[in-house]
Each structure stands twice: as structure tokens, then as C-alpha cells.
């Protein structure tokens, strides 16, 4: 068939269709279509290792089976049934080097793990495709294997050196910059979920070793994006347990697309609860996602909210609950302080139903239907939220308002009921070394860069040319610093890096991660790292030793972990051996005398810990709700919408894309869906600009631009466009156009006024 015709026919149809660009459509040909002769399966005597997924916060359990090539099982015919969790997809199998020998490995979702029970997502299903394999020159070329240094400044070439030379090079520059400009001249941007041990190592080195307070996490400037929740409960830690998805009566998701990010949670909710008709789902999202469509199909709601107006919707719902005198009086009386401030705040006319309809763009009947569902399912509702709220300017207000809505309805600490962040990445920090006092005046590393105060940067498990906002303005500033990179692959940072340190990653070193439902697991090493790559925490040890800074002489991951757990009562009982023994189900925190509550803020937790909440007075605090008095969505991002930038852009997470996409091009199941970033634009806005479905467009904001393929669809309302976050092609990175101002909870803001035009 004629390619052009094929392309044309393939672009027509469903609202959920991603687009193939013309280039991709051409590549979409027979040469990719090869049948497998036979897949070798793990033999009964394969070596077995416990793992958790290298990606999202759900932290599904996996097993690695390792065996000698040729010694695997060969099976003919059909050997298993649907939903058994026994089938080995060809993508689960690869060849790696272990102890210097080439071995077969199968990375298989673990049926024994209580989280996923043999299930997996498109991201985790590709775990094995990302392994460093001697068979692939492509993968070998992509991975960092040896320390590289630009010995004579930015214009000199990257040269392979020994670890000792690399560490000495960094130590000398750091010492000199610190002496000349003070410790805060040294800046850190770190992947805050990075396998727990490295995160602790680098923070201790930064705050205590170097004495610097210049740092940012990946995607935030200060505070870890939970302020609106911790204001109420004293911590932002997620409070639910995975089983709740099967027992809840109502799931409310605000700015969190669990189907695409948190997939196994959604699978359990959908298959066991929503589809059989036991539960309902209200999805609050400016996009009409697959999750939103399924919510509607099964008797729930999609509230297609105008971005940035969540505090008004939550406030209006609270006002309606109060007007009907339908809040959980017992819970409020017993546990809540600050209730009066809520009552008084929602009296403001901006929270009236009429006004909320106007501000949020959600029809009146839908808000009222949402209210009915919330009231019907009091004490049995999970309210979850995430980046859709956190990456807007009024992040604190939105997060806190939804929290208060849930609290007043008594959805706290009960089976199938919670108010919580859902999360994006696993929990990686269990101990936070004390920050230098200069931090109080040094919250925003971008200010330091702009004023020329930050002279060096260590990009530690974080691609700083993707994960920070307003890159058009700040990337050039970052490039000028003395730039140290610790990473697993070559990235666009190579071009500016002074030193590149290769990291041994998932599967290549013993690591620790925790799921967002609070299970801590060891991820066991099952293969050799490439070349001389070493786990990130060792990078810190080497540099600290060269600088003569004491306190970094760990010899093993176990020693790092022992130091961490000694500082955190929740995990102090979890020694390495008991974690090893606990396998893919791990141990849960907070743990006291070998026991852990299933849910936070529950009777069970109170009995175990002697307290119900983590606030000083053991109460739930809602008095900060009063900040909503000043909230006006026309300020902030909407204030920048004008004739030149008439549209509002938001970003979202692709199901198949993890983080900055550092493994995206390894997994064909991921990249063949979405070979280029696309921009969702309403047919009205597209027509007004002469933009056709499938054409390349530029998104331009007051802060910069990026590129995408237009997808003309009513998935977004007129006036709003949306594109994926962190798409792994440099010119398709939305962060080149995002705003530089930290949100009210210290995070980055990915809502921005813009114009879109064809190229």
C-alpha cells in the first residue's frame, strides 16, 4: 500500500490515538516485523534475585532469573492461561554479563509480591530491555562506562581518566571554588528518589561535608511538594495501602492520571472494583484521558477543570458539604483543629456554586453529582492528587483544599479511605542531614545562578537540562558552571560537562527503594555494570576522601543503610539481613517492635505508635485553609494570558515514558507508541490557527519554546493545550518554555501562557 495513503488512513479516528509523524510512518515497515523462533525460559535451577521495578512509586515486585545460555527451558504450545502472571513476554528476556560471563536473564513480574501479584505496566514490562548487554553496540554506546574529564576547560575534549584522577580533579576545583567564593558557590541538583543510599550520601556530603546549602531536587526548588498535606497531618507520607484500591467505594483523582502513572494501582481498581460496579471514580483533570473516559463509562464523572482553579472547586464542594451540614462531625470534633477558619473562608462568594461553575468551567450538574457521590461514600473515599496540582502556582492552596475536603468527610485512616498524594517516584529519602543555616536565605538555586553566585553544579542522577524549568534562560547559565555529572547514560549534559562519572544502576549494584505504600525493599545486584561504572554513593565517597572530609568511609551499601536507619525511628529496626529475607514484599514503615500499621492515621497506627497523627499536638490541622481567602486564579499563570499568549499550556505524563526517558529508546513498546512529543489542541483553537492534525507546531511562551506534533482533539477544552512532560528529544522538551517561579509549595510550575503556531 502507498505509504502516504497508509499515513492518512492511520490518522483518522479515535480520541485516544497518538500520531505517527511522517518519518515514523515510513519507518513503520516490514523490517521491524520479525517472528521469534523460540524463547528460552528460566530453568528450575536458575539463580533468583529479588527486585522492585526501576521506575514508578507503585514499586512492583520483580524476580530476576539468571542462567547459562542454552540451559533454559524450551516449551511447545500454550503453557499458561490469561491473568496467570506466568507468561514470559519476549521483552522480559535479555543477555547480560555476570561475573564476566555472558548469561541469560529474565526479569519477571513477581506473582508473590502483594503489590502487583504478577502484573506490570508498559514501563516496568520493559525493565529487561534496558539492561546493559554485550550483544548490543547501541546500548553499549549509550551507557557511561568510564570516568571522563575535560582536562583543559570547556573547549577541551572529554578524556577517559581513572576514578582516582576524576575524583582528584573534582576535589581540587571544589576546594578552590569554596575557598574563593564560599561553600554556597557549589550547587547540587539531585534525583531525590535515587535508590535511597546515593541520595543520603550526596546530601550528607553537601550539607555537612561541603557546608553548602545550594541545592534543588529534580523538579523542585525547596520543600518536597507535600506542604499542603503535611500542613494537615505533619507529614506528606502517603497514608493508604495498595489493597484500598480494591475496597474503596469512590476514587477521586485530582491532577493524577493513575492509569498512566501508577498503572498497577489503577489496574487493581479498574478490574476488581470499578468494572464490576462496586466503586465509582471521579477524575478531575483538564484532559479527557482514558482514565476519565473509563470513570464516566462506569457511572462516575470526569470534571474537566480549567487548569489552576482546583482550590475553587475544592472550596465550593466544602461549602456545599457545610451548607448541607453533612460533614463528619465526630471526626472533626475529635481530631481536627482550625475548622472555624474553613467555615469562615468558604463564605467568600468566590466559593459559591455559581461562581465555581464560572471559574472552573465545570457544569453545575457535574459539581452537584460529585457532591452526591462524595456524600454517599463518606468515610469510604480515596482522594488522591499529584503533579497536576503540585506543578501549578497555587500548589499549596490546591493540595490543602482537597485535603480539607477529604478530612471533613472523614476519609482518613480507614480501609478504602484516605486523602493523600499519589506520588510519582519511589521514596528515596529516609534521613535528611541538617542543612547549613545559610539555606534560610538560599532557597532558589536559580537566583544563585542568575546572580553568578553558583559557580559549580553537580548533576547527580538528574538531567538538569530537562528537569528544571525555563531552560531557555537557565541552561546557558548552568553550562557555564564547573559541571559534574553522575549518570548512567550519555545525555545532552555531555556537551557542557567538565566531569562525567558513570553510575552502576538497577541490577548492577545492591540498592534500596520504598514504594509509596511504605514497603522498603532491597533491589539485588544480578549482573555486572558496564566498564568501571560504580554506584552513585561511591562517587561521593571518592570525592570526599580526596578532599580529606571525614565521615564518608562506607565500604558497602549495608554500611550506608545502617547509618541512615539509625537516624529514622520508622525504619531503625530494618537491618539489611531482615530486608533481604523479606524479599519482594519488604518491610513496612513506620515499624515498631516488628509491626507496622497498614494505613497511617488509623486505630491500628494509634495503638502501635501511641499517636494518630504526626503533628505536634496529634491533631489534624486545617487552619491554613485561610490562605485561600487571598486565592485568585487570575493572578499567577492566567495573569500572563493575553493577546500575544492567548492559550494556557499544561503538561502531563505519558504512560510509556518514565522520568526524563533515559531508557525510553530501549523499549520498542514505549517508543513506537509515541515517537515524538505531541500537543493536544482543541479543534476550535487549531482551526483558528490553520493547524492540521499531525503537523509540526511550535509552542511559544514568554519564557521560551519547544516543538511537538499537533493532535487536534476535544480531549482538551478550547483555550488549553497540553503536551507530555520530559519527552526525550531535546527540541521537544516542554521545560524550555516553562515558568521560572517556584510554586507556593516550592515546586516547579509547568502551567504557562503560550501561543502555538505551525512550522
Amino acid at each position, binding site marked *: *500500500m*502507498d505509504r502516504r*495513503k*497508509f499515513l492518512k*488512513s*492511520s490518522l483518522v*479516528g*479515535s480520541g*485516544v*490515538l*497518538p500520531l505517527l509523524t511522517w518519518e515514523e510512518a515510513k*519507518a*513503520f515497515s516490514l*523490517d*521491524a*516485523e*520479525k*517472528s521469534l*523462533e*523460540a*524463547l*528460552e525460559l528460566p530453568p528450575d535451577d536458575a539463580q533468583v534475585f529479588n527486585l522492585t521495578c526501576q521506575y514508578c512509586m507503585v514499586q512492583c515486585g520483580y524476580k530476576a532469573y539468571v542462567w547459562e545460555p542454552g540451559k533454559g*527451558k*524450551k*516449551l511447545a*504450545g*500454550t*503453557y499458561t*492461561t*490469561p*491473568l*496467570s502472571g506466568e*507468561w514470559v*513476554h*519476549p*521483552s522480559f528476556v*535479555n543477555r547480560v554479563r555476570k561475573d564476566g560471563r555472558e548469561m541469560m536473564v529474565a526479569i519477571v513480574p513477581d506473582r508473590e509480591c502483594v503489590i502487583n501479584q*504478577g502484573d506490570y*505496566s*508498559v514501563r516496568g*514490562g520493559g525493565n529487561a530491555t534496558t539492561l546493559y*548487554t554485550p*550483544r*548490543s553496540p*547501541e546500548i553499549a*554506546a*549509550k551507557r557511561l562506562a568510564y570516568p571522563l574529564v575535560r582536562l583543559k576547560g570547556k573547549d577541551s575534549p572529554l578524556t577517559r581518566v581513572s576514578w582516582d584522577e576524576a575524583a582528584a580533579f573534582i576535589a581540587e576545583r571544589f576546594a578552590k571554588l569554596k575557598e574563593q567564593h564560599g561553600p554556597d558557590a557549589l550547587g547540587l541538583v539531585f534525583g531525590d528518589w535515587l535508590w535511597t543510599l546515593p541520595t543520603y550520601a550526596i546530601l550528607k556530603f553537601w550539607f555537612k561535608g561541603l557546608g553548602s546549602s545550594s541545592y534543588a531536587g529534580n523538579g523542585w526548588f525547596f520543600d518536597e511538594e507535600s506542604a499542603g498535606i503535611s500542613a494537615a497531618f505533619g507529614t506528606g507520607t502517603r497514608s493508604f495501602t495498595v489493597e484500598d484500591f480494591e475496597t474503596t467505594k469512590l476514587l477521586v483523582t485530582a491532577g493524577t492520571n493513575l492509569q498512566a502513572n501508577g*498503572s498497577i494501582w489503577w*489496574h487493581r481498581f*479498574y*478490574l476488581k472494583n470499578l468494572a464490576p460496579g462496586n466503586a465509582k471514580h471521579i477524575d478531575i483533570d483538564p484532559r479527557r484521558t482514558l482514565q476519565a473516559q*473509563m470513570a464516566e463509562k462506569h457511572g462516575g464523572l470526569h470534571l474537566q477543570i480549567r487548569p489552576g482553579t482546583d482550590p475553587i472547586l475544592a472550596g465550593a464542594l466544602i461549602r456545599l458539604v457545610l451548607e448541607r451540614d453533612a460533614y463528619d462531625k465526630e471526626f472533626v470534633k475529635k481530631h481536627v483543629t482550625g475548622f472555624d477558619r474553613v467555615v469562615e473562608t468558604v463564605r467568600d462568594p468566590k466559593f459559591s456554586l455559581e461562581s465555581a461553575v464560572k471559574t472552573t468551567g465545570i457544569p453545575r450538574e457535574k459539581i452537584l453529582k460529585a457532591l452526591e457521590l462524595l456524600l454517599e461514600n463518606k468515610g469510604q473515599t480515596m482522594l488522591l492528587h499529584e503533579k497536576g496540582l503540585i506543578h501549578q502556582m497555587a500548589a499549596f492552596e490546591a493540595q490543602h483544599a482537597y485535603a480539607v475536603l477529604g478530612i471533613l468527610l472523614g476519609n482518613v485512616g480507614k480501609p478504602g479511605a484516605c486523602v493523600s498524594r499519589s506520588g510519582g517516584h519511589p521514596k528515596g529519602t529516609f534521613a535528611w542531614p541538617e542543612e547549613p543555616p545559610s539555606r534560610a536565605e538560599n532557597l532558589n538555586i536559580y537566583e544563585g545562578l542568575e546572580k553568578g553566585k553558583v559557580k559549580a553544579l553537580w548533576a547527580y542522577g538528574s538531567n538538569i537540562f530537562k528537569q528544571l524549568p525555563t531552560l531557555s534562560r537557565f541552561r546557558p547559565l548552568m553550562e557555564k558552571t564547573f559541571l559534574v555529572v553522575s549518570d548512567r547514560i*550519555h545525555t545532552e549534559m555531555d556537551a557542557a560537562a567538565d566531569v562525567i562519572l558513570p553510575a552502576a544502576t538497577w541490577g548492577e549494584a545492591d540498592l534500596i527503594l520504598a514504594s509509596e505504600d511504605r514497603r522498603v525493599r532491597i533491589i539485588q545486584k544480578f549482573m555486572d555494570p558496564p566498564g568501571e561504572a560504580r554506584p552513585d554513593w561511591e562517587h561521593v565517597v571518592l570525592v570526599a576522601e580526596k578532599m580529606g572530609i571525614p565521615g564518608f568511609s562506607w565500604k558497602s551499601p549495608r554500611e550506608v543503610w545502617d547509618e541512615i536507619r539509625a537516624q529514622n525511628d520508622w525504619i531503625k529496626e530494618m537491618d539489611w539481613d531482615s530486608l533481604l529475607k523479606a524479599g519482594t514484599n519488604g518491610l513496612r514503615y513506620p515499624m515498631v517492635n516488628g509491626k507496622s500499621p497498614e494505613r497511617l492515621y488509623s486505630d491500628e497506627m494509634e495503638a502501635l505508635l501511641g499517636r494518630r497523627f504526626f503533628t505536634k499536638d496529634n491533631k489534624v490541622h486545617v487552619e491554613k485553609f485561610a490562605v485561600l481567602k487571598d486565592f485568585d486564579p487570575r493572578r499567577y499563570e492566567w495573569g500572563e494570558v493575553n493577546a500575544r499568549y492567548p492559550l494556557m499550556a499544561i503538561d502531563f505524563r505519558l*504512560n510509556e515514558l518514565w522520568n526524563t526517558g533515559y531508557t525510553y529508546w*530501549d523499549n*520498542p*513498546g514505549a517508543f*513506537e*507508541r509515541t515517537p515524538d512529543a505531541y500537543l493536544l489542541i482543541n479543534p476550535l483553537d487549531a482551526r483558528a490557527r490553520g493547524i492540521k492534525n499531525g503537523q509540526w507546531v511550535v509552542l511559544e511562551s514568554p519564557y521560551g519554546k519547544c516543538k511537538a506534533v499537533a493532535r487536534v482533539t476535544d480531549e482538551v477544552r478550547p483555550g488549553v493545550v497540553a503536551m507530555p512532560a520530559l519527552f*526525550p528529544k531535546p527540541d521537544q522538551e516542554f521545560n524550555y518554555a516553562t515558568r521560572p517561579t517556584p510554586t507556593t509549595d516550592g515546586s516547579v510550575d509547568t502551567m504557562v501562557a503560550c501561543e502555538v503556531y505551525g512550522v
Partner: protein
Amino acid sequence: MVVSRRKALVYLGVAGAPVAMRKVFAQGERVKVADLAGLVPLQPVSFSYPDEGSPAILLDMGRPTYMGVGPKKSIVAYSALCQHLGCPTAFDPKEKLLVCPCHISLYDPARGGICLEGPAISRLPRIVLEVAGGSVYAVGVAYGLIYGRASNA
């Protein structure tokens, strides 16, 4: 470094493959699936291939289609079992997609069976078709592995 799609496909197909991939498709038995005269566009025909344990779906998309056979090059067939956890997919004539009811993987029969959304990490294996004497025959399996098996043969 961003690997181009083309290069990545080369890796997938040749260099890093865990198993041998010598043939373009696994040549199987020749099994009659349907008569051309009886096919109605967008009405799926169920059959099994390569054996009873592996249900498949034949579709006349009603217009020229990627790898389609027949007078209009519009006829394609795929393994009906979802590549995620093996639930049987069903054809949705409105969306023109094969939909898995278990966790909603959506496959596009017009584009080689690629998965557009949902947890499946690969395309549906395509059943290779031949037309002879007014009938459509299944003759082999192209791409991947049929769910539940370690070999398509």
C-alpha cells in the same frame, strides 16, 4: 544520546535480540480462515492459529491497510490474546481498535497491531494471510510471540 528509531529497531531485530530471529515470519501450517465472499467490513471473524489454544481475529478493515491482503488489500489478522496478561481482546467497530477488557490495552489493527495505550508492551502478533481461490488462509505468524507460548510454531 538519543537513539534513532531506525537504529533502535536494528537493535531490537538483530544485534541485541535474546533469541534467534532468522525468518521474517514463522511459517506454519496453512489453515483456511474464511471465504472472501462471506467477509463484511469491520465484522471480525474468529479462528485459532497456530493451534486450538491460540485464538485469533480476522478483520476486513474496508479499505487498504498496512500488510492487508485481498482485492482491496484490506484484510488483516492478529492473535486475539492481549500481550499484557492474555485476556481475549475484542474488536470495537466504532474506534476501529482491538480492545482488551482487562486493563484496557488498545491495539490498532490498521497499524500492524501496535498498542496505542494501556499496559501491553508490544504489538499483537500478526497472523500472515494468503488469498487463494476466493479463500483466505493463515500461513504463519509475524512479530513477537503469541500470549501463553514460548514459540509460535
